[in-house]
Protein backbone atom coordinates (compact mmCIF):
# COMPACT_ATOMS: atom_id res chain seq x y z
CA UNK A 1 0.00 0.00 0.00
CA UNK A 2 1.28 3.45 -0.88
CA UNK A 3 -0.05 6.86 -1.90
CA UNK A 4 0.30 9.51 -4.53
CA UNK A 5 -0.62 12.81 -2.95
CA UNK A 6 -1.07 16.06 -4.77
CA UNK A 7 -2.81 19.40 -4.22
CA UNK A 8 -5.31 20.90 -6.65
CA UNK A 9 -3.07 22.55 -9.24
CA UNK A 10 -4.18 25.81 -10.79
CA UNK A 11 -1.92 26.90 -13.64
CA UNK A 12 -1.66 29.01 -16.75
CA UNK A 13 -2.87 32.49 -17.61
CA UNK A 14 -4.35 34.44 -14.69
CA UNK A 15 -4.08 31.44 -12.37
CA UNK A 16 -3.91 33.79 -9.40
CA UNK A 17 -7.53 34.75 -10.04
CA UNK A 18 -8.53 31.37 -8.67
CA UNK A 19 -8.22 33.05 -5.25
CA UNK A 20 -11.49 34.83 -6.03
CA UNK A 21 -13.23 31.48 -5.85
CA UNK A 22 -12.17 30.39 -2.38
CA UNK A 23 -14.51 30.58 0.57
CA UNK A 24 -13.44 31.79 3.98
CA UNK A 25 -13.04 34.70 6.38
CA UNK A 26 -9.38 35.40 7.09
CA UNK A 27 -6.12 34.52 5.39
CA UNK A 28 -2.62 34.78 6.80
CA UNK A 29 -0.08 35.37 4.04
CA UNK A 30 3.36 34.01 4.94
CA UNK A 31 6.09 35.56 2.83
CA UNK A 32 9.30 37.57 2.89
CA UNK A 33 10.03 41.29 2.92
CA UNK A 34 11.33 41.33 -0.67
CA UNK A 35 8.04 40.06 -2.05
CA UNK A 36 6.15 42.69 -0.11
CA UNK A 37 8.37 45.33 -1.72
CA UNK A 38 7.97 43.84 -5.19
CA UNK A 39 4.20 44.18 -4.86
CA UNK A 40 3.48 40.43 -5.01
CA UNK A 41 1.63 40.51 -1.72
CA UNK A 42 -0.61 43.29 -3.06
CA UNK A 43 -1.49 41.12 -6.06
CA UNK A 44 -2.60 38.31 -3.77
CA UNK A 45 -4.42 40.73 -1.47
CA UNK A 46 -6.41 42.17 -4.38
CA UNK A 47 -7.68 38.73 -5.32
CA UNK A 48 -8.56 37.92 -1.73
CA UNK A 49 -10.56 41.13 -1.54
CA UNK A 50 -12.66 39.89 -4.48
CA UNK A 51 -13.42 36.79 -2.46
CA UNK A 52 -14.39 38.90 0.57
CA UNK A 53 -11.51 37.50 2.59
CA UNK A 54 -9.59 39.66 5.05
CA UNK A 55 -5.87 39.15 5.33
CA UNK A 56 -2.83 39.76 7.44
CA UNK A 57 0.80 39.45 6.34
CA UNK A 58 3.66 37.73 8.14
CA UNK A 59 6.67 38.78 6.09
CA UNK A 60 9.53 37.87 8.40
CA UNK A 61 10.59 34.67 6.64
CA UNK A 62 14.33 34.75 5.98
CA UNK A 63 16.19 32.51 3.52
CA UNK A 64 16.51 29.11 5.28
CA UNK A 65 13.89 29.86 7.93
CA UNK A 66 14.79 29.17 11.53
CA UNK A 67 12.80 27.46 14.24
CA UNK A 68 12.31 30.90 15.88
CA UNK A 69 10.76 32.39 12.75
CA UNK A 70 8.34 29.50 12.50
CA UNK A 71 7.33 29.91 16.14
CA UNK A 72 6.86 33.65 15.65
CA UNK A 73 4.64 33.06 12.62
CA UNK A 74 2.61 30.49 14.52
CA UNK A 75 2.04 33.07 17.25
CA UNK A 76 0.64 35.48 14.68
CA UNK A 77 -1.66 32.73 13.38
CA UNK A 78 -2.86 31.91 16.89
CA UNK A 79 -3.77 35.55 17.47
CA UNK A 80 -5.32 36.21 14.05
CA UNK A 81 -7.13 32.85 13.73
CA UNK A 82 -7.11 32.56 9.93
CA UNK A 83 -9.04 29.84 8.11
CA UNK A 84 -6.59 29.99 5.20
CA UNK A 85 -2.82 30.08 5.22
CA UNK A 86 -1.10 31.29 2.09
CA UNK A 87 2.56 30.53 1.49
CA UNK A 88 3.83 33.04 -1.06
CA UNK A 89 7.44 32.92 -2.23
CA UNK A 90 10.21 30.44 -2.79
CA UNK A 91 10.86 27.28 -0.83
CA UNK A 92 11.68 29.14 2.37
CA UNK A 93 8.38 31.05 2.53
CA UNK A 94 6.28 28.04 1.54
CA UNK A 95 8.06 25.70 3.95
CA UNK A 96 7.70 28.21 6.76
CA UNK A 97 4.00 28.61 5.94
CA UNK A 98 3.44 24.86 6.12
CA UNK A 99 5.25 24.61 9.45
CA UNK A 100 3.35 27.58 10.85
CA UNK A 101 0.18 25.77 9.81
CA UNK A 102 1.16 22.66 11.78
CA UNK A 103 2.11 24.71 14.86
CA UNK A 104 -1.07 26.75 14.57
CA UNK A 105 -3.03 23.50 14.92
CA UNK A 106 -0.71 22.03 17.58
CA UNK A 107 1.17 24.86 19.33
CA UNK A 108 3.31 22.49 21.42
CA UNK A 109 4.87 20.89 18.34
CA UNK A 110 8.63 21.29 17.88
CA UNK A 111 9.17 22.29 14.23
CA UNK A 112 12.10 19.88 13.84
CA UNK A 113 10.01 17.02 15.23
CA UNK A 114 7.14 17.10 12.73
CA UNK A 115 6.69 13.49 11.64
CA UNK A 116 4.48 11.62 9.16
CA UNK A 117 2.79 9.38 11.67
CA UNK A 118 1.35 11.81 14.17
CA UNK A 119 -1.98 13.60 13.95
CA UNK A 120 -1.82 17.38 13.78
CA UNK A 121 -5.44 17.87 12.74
CA UNK A 122 -4.27 20.95 10.85
CA UNK A 123 -7.36 21.26 8.68
CA UNK A 124 -9.59 21.68 11.70
CA UNK A 125 -8.25 25.23 11.86
CA UNK A 126 -7.21 26.24 8.36
CA UNK A 127 -6.42 25.13 4.87
CA UNK A 128 -3.37 25.97 2.83
CA UNK A 129 -2.60 27.56 -0.52
CA UNK A 130 0.94 27.76 -1.84
CA UNK A 131 1.95 30.22 -4.54
CA UNK A 132 5.53 29.81 -5.78
CA UNK A 133 7.49 32.80 -7.02
CA UNK A 134 10.50 30.73 -8.10
CA UNK A 135 10.62 27.78 -10.48
CA UNK A 136 12.51 25.20 -8.57
CA UNK A 137 11.76 24.11 -5.05
CA UNK A 138 8.33 22.72 -5.87
CA UNK A 139 7.44 22.99 -2.20
CA UNK A 140 3.90 23.92 -3.29
CA UNK A 141 3.15 20.26 -4.08
CA UNK A 142 4.95 18.50 -1.24
CA UNK A 143 4.33 17.72 2.42
CA UNK A 144 7.97 18.25 3.31
CA UNK A 145 9.60 21.25 4.94
CA UNK A 146 13.17 22.24 5.71
CA UNK A 147 13.88 24.13 8.91
CA UNK A 148 17.25 25.44 10.09
CA UNK A 149 18.55 24.93 13.58
CA UNK A 150 20.79 27.99 13.83
CA UNK A 151 22.44 26.82 17.04
CA UNK A 152 23.58 23.44 15.71
CA UNK A 153 24.08 24.85 12.17
CA UNK A 154 21.86 22.17 10.82
CA UNK A 155 19.17 21.95 8.15
CA UNK A 156 16.48 19.47 9.08
CA UNK A 157 13.95 18.07 6.61
CA UNK A 158 10.67 17.16 8.25
CA UNK A 159 7.29 16.18 6.92
CA UNK A 160 3.77 14.99 7.47
CA UNK A 161 1.19 14.22 4.78
CA UNK A 162 -1.08 16.70 6.57
CA UNK A 163 1.22 19.51 5.43
CA UNK A 164 0.37 18.90 1.78
CA UNK A 165 -1.15 22.18 0.53
CA UNK A 166 -4.79 22.04 -0.58
CA UNK A 167 -4.14 24.26 -3.57
CA UNK A 168 -1.00 25.14 -5.52
CA UNK A 169 -1.31 28.16 -7.78
CA UNK A 170 1.26 28.26 -10.58
CA UNK A 171 0.99 31.72 -12.08
CA UNK A 172 3.92 32.27 -14.40
CA UNK A 173 3.60 36.05 -14.17
CA UNK A 174 5.13 35.69 -10.70
CA UNK A 175 8.30 34.08 -12.01
CA UNK A 176 8.75 36.48 -14.93
CA UNK A 177 10.99 38.82 -12.95
CA UNK A 178 13.21 36.17 -11.37
CA UNK A 179 16.85 37.27 -11.65
CA UNK A 180 19.27 35.00 -13.48
CA UNK A 181 21.00 33.68 -10.37
CA UNK A 182 17.72 32.58 -8.86
CA UNK A 183 16.62 30.91 -12.12
CA UNK A 184 19.88 28.95 -12.07
CA UNK A 185 19.82 27.89 -8.41
CA UNK A 186 16.17 26.92 -8.29
CA UNK A 187 16.32 25.31 -11.72
CA UNK A 188 19.15 23.06 -10.58
CA UNK A 189 17.05 22.13 -7.55
CA UNK A 190 14.17 21.08 -9.82
CA UNK A 191 16.52 19.09 -12.03
CA UNK A 192 17.89 17.32 -8.95
CA UNK A 193 14.36 16.56 -7.75
CA UNK A 194 13.29 14.75 -10.89
CA UNK A 195 16.55 12.86 -11.35
CA UNK A 196 16.59 11.73 -7.71
CA UNK A 197 12.90 10.90 -7.65
CA UNK A 198 13.29 8.86 -10.82
CA UNK A 199 16.37 7.09 -9.50
CA UNK A 200 14.92 6.20 -6.09
CA UNK A 201 14.04 2.66 -5.07
CA UNK A 202 10.76 4.18 -3.90
CA UNK A 203 9.85 5.07 -7.50
CA UNK A 204 6.39 4.06 -8.70
CA UNK A 205 4.38 4.31 -11.91
CA UNK A 206 2.87 7.47 -10.48
CA UNK A 207 6.18 9.19 -9.75
CA UNK A 208 7.93 8.07 -12.93
CA UNK A 209 5.51 9.93 -15.19
CA UNK A 210 5.99 13.37 -13.63
CA UNK A 211 9.74 12.75 -13.21
CA UNK A 212 10.28 12.03 -16.88
CA UNK A 213 8.15 14.93 -18.06
CA UNK A 214 9.88 17.30 -15.66
CA UNK A 215 13.29 16.20 -16.94
CA UNK A 216 12.25 16.70 -20.55
CA UNK A 217 10.90 20.18 -19.83
CA UNK A 218 13.95 21.21 -17.81
CA UNK A 219 16.36 20.10 -20.51
CA UNK A 220 14.31 22.00 -23.06
CA UNK A 221 13.50 25.18 -21.17
CA UNK A 222 15.91 25.85 -18.30
CA UNK A 223 18.70 27.31 -20.42
CA UNK A 224 16.19 29.41 -22.33
CA UNK A 225 14.61 30.65 -19.11
CA UNK A 226 18.06 31.59 -17.83
CA UNK A 227 19.24 33.27 -21.03
CA UNK A 228 16.18 35.37 -21.66
CA UNK A 229 13.86 36.63 -18.92
CA UNK A 230 11.31 37.68 -21.54
CA UNK A 231 10.93 34.11 -22.79
CA UNK A 232 7.50 33.58 -21.24
CA UNK A 233 7.04 30.14 -22.73
CA UNK A 234 10.25 28.92 -21.09
CA UNK A 235 9.42 30.49 -17.73
CA UNK A 236 5.93 28.98 -17.74
CA UNK A 237 7.15 25.49 -18.59
CA UNK A 238 9.87 25.71 -15.95
CA UNK A 239 7.27 26.57 -13.32
CA UNK A 240 5.24 23.53 -14.35
CA UNK A 241 8.36 21.36 -14.47
CA UNK A 242 9.28 22.39 -10.97
CA UNK A 243 5.93 21.17 -9.62
CA UNK A 244 6.13 17.93 -11.63
CA UNK A 245 9.65 17.25 -10.38
CA UNK A 246 8.57 17.65 -6.78
CA UNK A 247 5.55 15.40 -7.27
CA UNK A 248 8.06 12.75 -8.29
CA UNK A 249 10.45 12.91 -5.35
CA UNK A 250 7.95 13.75 -2.62
CA UNK A 251 5.74 10.78 -3.43
CA UNK A 252 8.85 8.63 -3.43
CA UNK A 253 12.16 9.80 -2.08
CA UNK A 254 14.93 12.28 -2.80
CA UNK A 255 18.52 11.09 -2.87
CA UNK A 256 22.18 11.63 -2.05
CA UNK A 257 22.56 15.08 -3.62
CA UNK A 258 19.91 16.40 -1.25
CA UNK A 259 21.50 14.68 1.72
CA UNK A 260 24.96 16.02 0.91
CA UNK A 261 23.56 19.43 -0.04
CA UNK A 262 21.71 19.78 3.26
CA UNK A 263 24.86 18.83 5.13
CA UNK A 264 26.92 21.42 3.25
CA UNK A 265 24.25 24.11 3.57
CA UNK A 266 24.15 23.65 7.34
CA UNK A 267 27.82 24.54 7.72
CA UNK A 268 28.45 26.94 4.86
CA UNK A 269 26.34 29.61 3.28
CA UNK A 270 25.40 27.99 0.01
CA UNK A 271 21.86 28.11 -1.38
CA UNK A 272 19.86 24.90 -1.48
CA UNK A 273 19.73 24.66 -5.28
CA UNK A 274 23.40 25.43 -5.75
CA UNK A 275 24.51 22.83 -3.23
CA UNK A 276 22.27 19.97 -4.36
CA UNK A 277 22.97 20.73 -8.02
CA UNK A 278 26.69 20.68 -7.32
CA UNK A 279 26.66 17.19 -5.80
CA UNK A 280 24.21 15.70 -8.33
CA UNK A 281 26.72 14.77 -11.08
CA UNK A 282 29.06 13.17 -8.50
CA UNK A 283 26.20 11.07 -7.11
CA UNK A 284 25.15 10.11 -10.62
CA UNK A 285 28.69 8.96 -11.34
CA UNK A 286 28.62 6.91 -8.14
CA UNK A 287 25.28 5.37 -9.18
CA UNK A 288 26.14 4.92 -12.86
CA UNK A 289 26.53 1.17 -12.89
CA UNK A 290 23.85 0.34 -10.34
CA UNK A 291 21.40 2.76 -11.93
CA UNK A 292 22.27 2.41 -15.61
CA UNK A 293 19.04 0.69 -16.58
CA UNK A 294 16.92 3.29 -14.83
CA UNK A 295 18.84 6.36 -15.96
CA UNK A 296 19.11 5.11 -19.54
CA UNK A 297 15.33 5.12 -19.73
CA UNK A 298 15.31 8.78 -18.71
CA UNK A 299 18.12 9.60 -21.14
CA UNK A 300 16.17 8.04 -24.01
CA UNK A 301 13.03 9.91 -23.02
CA UNK A 302 14.74 13.28 -23.16
CA UNK A 303 16.16 12.43 -26.56
CA UNK A 304 19.76 11.45 -25.84
CA UNK A 305 21.43 8.87 -28.05
CA UNK A 306 23.61 5.96 -27.01
CA UNK A 307 24.20 2.29 -27.80
CA UNK A 308 24.18 0.91 -24.27
CA UNK A 309 22.54 1.78 -20.97
CA UNK A 310 25.92 2.80 -19.60
CA UNK A 311 26.58 5.10 -22.52
CA UNK A 312 23.13 6.69 -22.15
CA UNK A 313 23.61 7.17 -18.42
CA UNK A 314 26.99 8.80 -18.96
CA UNK A 315 25.32 11.02 -21.56
CA UNK A 316 22.75 12.08 -18.98
CA UNK A 317 25.48 12.96 -16.49
CA UNK A 318 27.29 15.04 -19.14
CA UNK A 319 24.01 16.74 -19.96
CA UNK A 320 23.57 17.72 -16.33
CA UNK A 321 27.13 19.00 -16.10
CA UNK A 322 26.70 20.96 -19.29
CA UNK A 323 23.49 22.48 -17.93
CA UNK A 324 25.23 23.54 -14.71
CA UNK A 325 28.05 25.12 -16.69
CA UNK A 326 25.63 27.01 -18.91
CA UNK A 327 23.88 28.36 -15.81
CA UNK A 328 27.16 29.53 -14.30
CA UNK A 329 26.89 27.04 -11.44
CA UNK A 330 29.99 25.81 -9.61
CA UNK A 331 31.24 22.37 -10.60
CA UNK A 332 33.22 21.82 -7.41
CA UNK A 333 33.07 22.92 -3.78
CA UNK A 334 36.44 24.60 -4.27
CA UNK A 335 34.84 26.99 -6.77
CA UNK A 336 32.52 28.17 -4.01
CA UNK A 337 35.59 29.54 -2.24
CA UNK A 338 35.01 27.31 0.75
CA UNK A 339 38.25 26.90 2.66
CA UNK A 340 39.55 23.34 2.43
CA UNK A 341 40.54 23.17 6.09
CA UNK A 342 37.08 24.32 7.19
CA UNK A 343 35.47 21.79 4.83
CA UNK A 344 37.61 18.98 6.17
CA UNK A 345 36.89 20.01 9.73
CA UNK A 346 33.15 19.77 9.07
CA UNK A 347 33.57 16.56 7.06
CA UNK A 348 32.95 13.90 9.75
CA UNK A 349 29.74 15.61 10.82
CA UNK A 350 28.64 16.22 7.21
CA UNK A 351 29.21 12.53 6.42
CA UNK A 352 27.24 11.43 9.49
CA UNK A 353 24.36 13.76 8.65
CA UNK A 354 24.24 12.76 4.98
CA UNK A 355 24.30 9.07 5.88
CA UNK A 356 21.66 9.61 8.57
CA UNK A 357 19.03 11.12 6.25
CA UNK A 358 15.95 9.07 5.53
CA UNK A 359 16.60 8.72 1.82
CA UNK A 360 20.11 7.27 2.04
CA UNK A 361 18.93 3.64 2.28
CA UNK A 362 16.57 4.18 -0.68
CA UNK A 363 19.11 4.99 -3.41
CA UNK A 364 20.20 2.49 -6.05
CA UNK A 365 23.62 2.03 -4.48
CA UNK A 366 23.80 2.72 -0.78
CA UNK A 367 27.11 4.31 0.28
CA UNK A 368 28.82 3.54 3.57
CA UNK A 369 30.66 6.24 5.52
CA UNK A 370 33.87 5.71 3.60
CA UNK A 371 32.24 6.16 0.18
CA UNK A 372 30.24 9.14 1.41
CA UNK A 373 33.41 10.79 2.68
CA UNK A 374 35.17 10.16 -0.62
CA UNK A 375 32.24 11.66 -2.52
CA UNK A 376 32.47 14.83 -0.41
CA UNK A 377 36.22 15.02 -1.05
CA UNK A 378 36.04 14.32 -4.78
CA UNK A 379 33.32 16.97 -5.11
CA UNK A 380 35.59 19.45 -3.34
CA UNK A 381 38.35 19.00 -5.89
CA UNK A 382 36.08 18.44 -8.87
CA UNK A 383 37.38 14.91 -9.46
CA UNK A 384 35.33 12.37 -11.40
CA UNK A 385 34.08 9.56 -9.15
CA UNK A 386 36.08 6.42 -9.95
CA UNK A 387 34.99 4.03 -7.18
Amino acid at each position, binding site marked *: *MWYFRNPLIVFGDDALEHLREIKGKRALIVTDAVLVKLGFVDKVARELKHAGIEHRVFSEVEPDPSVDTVRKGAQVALEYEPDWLIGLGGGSAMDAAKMIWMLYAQPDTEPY*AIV*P*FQDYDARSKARMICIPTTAGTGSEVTWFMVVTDTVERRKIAVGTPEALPDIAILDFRLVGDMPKGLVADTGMDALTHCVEGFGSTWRTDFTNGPALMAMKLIFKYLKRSYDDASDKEAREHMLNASALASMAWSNGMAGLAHNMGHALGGFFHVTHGKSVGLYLPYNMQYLTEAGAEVFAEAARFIGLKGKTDLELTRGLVSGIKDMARHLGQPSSVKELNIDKAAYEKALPEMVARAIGEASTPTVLRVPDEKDMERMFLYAYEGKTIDF
Partner: protein
Amino acid sequence: MAVFATQEWLDEIAKLLNEDPAYAEGAKGWEGDFLYIIEPDELQPNPSYYYMDLYHGKCRKAVVLKDPSKVKAEFELSATYSVWKKILTGELDGMKAMITRKMKFKGAIAKVMKDTKSQQAYAKALAPLKTEYVK
Protein backbone atom coordinates in the same frame (compact mmCIF):
# COMPACT_ATOMS: atom_id res chain seq x y z
CA MET B 1 18.03 -19.87 14.01
CA ALA B 2 15.64 -18.39 16.58
CA VAL B 3 11.96 -17.68 16.09
CA PHE B 4 10.84 -14.06 15.98
CA ALA B 5 9.87 -12.52 19.32
CA THR B 6 10.86 -15.54 21.43
CA GLN B 7 13.23 -15.26 24.40
CA GLU B 8 15.85 -17.17 22.44
CA TRP B 9 15.63 -14.58 19.64
CA LEU B 10 15.91 -11.69 22.10
CA ASP B 11 18.93 -13.30 23.77
CA GLU B 12 20.61 -13.41 20.40
CA ILE B 13 19.87 -9.73 19.81
CA ALA B 14 21.27 -8.80 23.24
CA LYS B 15 24.39 -10.83 22.52
CA LEU B 16 24.96 -9.23 19.12
CA LEU B 17 24.57 -5.74 20.58
CA ASN B 18 26.62 -6.31 23.71
CA GLU B 19 29.51 -7.97 21.91
CA ASP B 20 29.81 -5.31 19.22
CA PRO B 21 32.29 -2.53 20.04
CA ALA B 22 30.97 -0.48 17.11
CA TYR B 23 27.51 -0.55 18.70
CA ALA B 24 28.94 0.43 22.09
CA GLU B 25 30.60 3.42 20.45
CA GLY B 26 27.82 4.42 18.04
CA ALA B 27 25.02 4.19 20.60
CA LYS B 28 26.87 5.60 23.58
CA GLY B 29 24.64 8.67 23.57
CA TRP B 30 21.40 6.73 23.61
CA GLU B 31 19.23 5.86 26.56
CA GLY B 32 15.66 4.70 26.14
CA ASP B 33 13.50 1.62 26.42
CA PHE B 34 11.00 0.15 23.99
CA LEU B 35 7.86 -1.92 24.22
CA TYR B 36 7.15 -3.94 21.10
CA ILE B 37 3.59 -5.05 20.51
CA ILE B 38 2.81 -7.81 18.06
CA GLU B 39 -0.84 -7.56 17.24
CA PRO B 40 -2.69 -10.74 16.36
CA ASP B 41 -3.49 -11.63 12.78
CA GLU B 42 -3.83 -14.71 10.58
CA LEU B 43 -0.19 -15.68 11.20
CA GLN B 44 -0.42 -15.53 14.97
CA PRO B 45 -3.81 -15.52 16.68
CA ASN B 46 -2.68 -14.08 20.02
CA PRO B 47 -0.95 -10.81 20.78
CA SER B 48 2.59 -10.94 22.12
CA TYR B 49 4.98 -8.43 23.60
CA TYR B 50 8.62 -7.88 24.21
CA TYR B 51 10.65 -5.24 25.92
CA MET B 52 14.12 -3.86 25.28
CA ASP B 53 16.17 -1.44 27.31
CA LEU B 54 19.03 0.18 25.44
CA TYR B 55 21.40 2.26 27.50
CA HIS B 56 24.68 3.92 26.54
CA GLY B 57 25.70 1.38 23.92
CA LYS B 58 24.52 -1.66 25.85
CA CYS B 59 21.36 -3.74 25.81
CA ARG B 60 20.48 -3.90 29.50
CA LYS B 61 17.39 -6.00 29.07
CA ALA B 62 15.58 -7.87 26.29
CA VAL B 63 12.69 -9.97 27.48
CA VAL B 64 9.40 -11.44 26.36
CA LEU B 65 6.50 -10.03 28.35
CA LYS B 66 3.29 -11.77 29.28
CA ASP B 67 1.69 -8.65 30.66
CA PRO B 68 2.67 -5.37 28.98
CA SER B 69 0.95 -3.29 31.64
CA LYS B 70 3.81 -4.22 33.98
CA VAL B 71 6.27 -1.98 32.12
CA LYS B 72 6.28 1.69 31.37
CA ALA B 73 8.49 2.07 28.32
CA GLU B 74 9.47 5.42 26.86
CA PHE B 75 8.67 4.25 23.33
CA GLU B 76 6.11 1.85 21.94
CA LEU B 77 5.97 0.21 18.54
CA SER B 78 3.04 -1.89 17.45
CA ALA B 79 2.13 -3.78 14.29
CA THR B 80 0.63 -7.09 13.28
CA TYR B 81 2.80 -10.20 13.10
CA SER B 82 2.68 -10.09 9.27
CA VAL B 83 3.81 -6.47 9.18
CA TRP B 84 6.72 -7.16 11.58
CA LYS B 85 7.72 -10.08 9.42
CA LYS B 86 7.61 -8.01 6.24
CA ILE B 87 9.73 -5.27 7.84
CA LEU B 88 12.32 -7.65 9.24
CA THR B 89 12.66 -9.54 5.96
CA GLY B 90 13.04 -6.26 4.09
CA GLU B 91 9.87 -6.73 2.10
CA LEU B 92 8.36 -3.58 3.63
CA ASP B 93 10.26 -0.41 4.47
CA GLY B 94 9.86 0.52 8.15
CA MET B 95 9.32 4.15 7.30
CA LYS B 96 6.63 3.32 4.76
CA ALA B 97 4.98 1.11 7.37
CA MET B 98 4.78 4.08 9.71
CA ILE B 99 3.59 6.55 7.07
CA THR B 100 0.79 4.18 6.05
CA ARG B 101 0.07 3.58 9.76
CA LYS B 102 0.63 -0.14 9.43
CA MET B 103 3.08 0.34 12.27
CA LYS B 104 2.23 2.68 15.10
CA PHE B 105 4.75 4.61 17.15
CA LYS B 106 4.25 6.16 20.58
CA GLY B 107 6.77 8.38 22.36
CA ALA B 108 8.86 11.47 21.74
CA ILE B 109 9.96 10.78 18.18
CA ALA B 110 12.25 13.84 18.16
CA LYS B 111 14.64 12.05 20.51
CA VAL B 112 14.88 9.06 18.18
CA MET B 113 15.23 11.20 15.08
CA LYS B 114 18.07 13.23 16.54
CA ASP B 115 20.20 10.16 17.27
CA THR B 116 20.68 8.68 13.83
CA LYS B 117 24.11 7.42 14.87
CA SER B 118 22.75 4.93 17.37
CA GLN B 119 20.11 3.74 14.92
CA GLN B 120 22.73 3.07 12.28
CA ALA B 121 24.92 1.25 14.80
CA TYR B 122 21.92 -0.82 15.90
CA ALA B 123 21.05 -1.82 12.33
CA LYS B 124 24.67 -2.74 11.59
CA ALA B 125 25.08 -4.80 14.75
CA LEU B 126 21.94 -6.78 14.01
CA ALA B 127 22.69 -7.38 10.34
CA PRO B 128 23.91 -10.97 10.98
CA LEU B 129 20.70 -11.85 12.88
CA LYS B 130 18.77 -14.69 11.27
CA THR B 131 15.11 -14.98 12.12
CA GLU B 132 12.51 -17.68 11.68
CA TYR B 133 8.77 -17.10 11.67
CA VAL B 134 5.81 -19.16 12.79
CA LYS B 135 4.50 -19.17 9.24
